[in-house]
């Protein structure tokens, strides 16, 4: 199986591996946590409760989105680790930290997609936080969705990608 996005270059399995490696690197270096990946999901998760989502878009020879979806209690622990101080409530620090994680994941994947760095652009991160919300992609692109766990906490990293003509 290969992504519609990547028929010439990347299989879904390769992209899943890149997502897993990027997530592990960002978390071990910047979040001081070591997440363990689980089997990829066949369908994207669209509805989230008491969660936060960070997203960064790609534009250029590839378009798409990389996103991280975390339950709020885990996101607060991640933010506390990154800042070296307790973060106990939803605030700008939390939004910024999750946005920056999405940004680093996007940068990591961009290096795989782009030969020199100028043919794929990254957007500024977008963050959504709420008690009950849905995230829908209006494109018919395929995607890879990787669940991770840290102790009993789970989060998801998704990558949607289309190769432009």
């Amino acid at each position: 199986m290969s992504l519609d996005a990547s028929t010439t270059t990347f299989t879904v399995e390769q992209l899943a591996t890149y997502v897993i490696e990027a997530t592990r690197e960002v978390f071990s270096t910047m979040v001081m946590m070591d997440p363990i990946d689980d089997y990829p999901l066949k369908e994207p998760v669209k509805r989230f409760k008491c969660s936060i989502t960070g997203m960064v878009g790609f534009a250029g020879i590839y378009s798409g989105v990389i996103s991280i979806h975390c339950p709020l209690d885990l996101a607060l622990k991640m933010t506390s680790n990154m800042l070296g101080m307790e973060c106990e409530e939803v605030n700008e620090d939390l939004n910024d930290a999750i946005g920056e994680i999405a940004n680093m994941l996007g940068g990591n994947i961009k290096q795989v997609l782009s030969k020199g760095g100028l043919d794929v652009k990254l957007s500024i991160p977008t963050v959504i936080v709420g008690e009950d919300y849905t995230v829908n992609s209006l494109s018919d692109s395929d995607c890879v969705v990787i669940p991770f766990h840290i102790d009993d906490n789970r989060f998801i990293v998704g990558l949607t990608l289309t190769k432009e003509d």
Partner: protein
Amino acid sequence: MANILIVDDSSTMRKIISRSLRQAGLSVDEIYEAGDGIEGLNVIASGKTIGLILSDINMPNMDGLEFIKQVRANGNTVPVVMITTEGGEEIIKEAMSNGASDSIKKPFTPDQLQEKLGKLL
């Protein structure tokens, strides 16, 4: 001891870089922060003595490539190191041709920061 200016739109990343500079044992005095290139230029224009600038590339309002171009256009020769997720060869080449001294890829460890910045401080 040098004063350092960190230009990054992420407050989290500015805090991580500040902490990493201290952890790496680099000779750092004051650390100034700016959220984009325009704010960075304002800090420089305020007359503060800056010994090293660390700048992101992908920022709103004024990105790091334009920021460094403006810094050099004003005749400032302070070392500028790009700290960025944008690790592509061409984009780094463009940053260097605009006047950057070096680059560090995010995510990074304090050791990597020390290795790159130790020679500039």
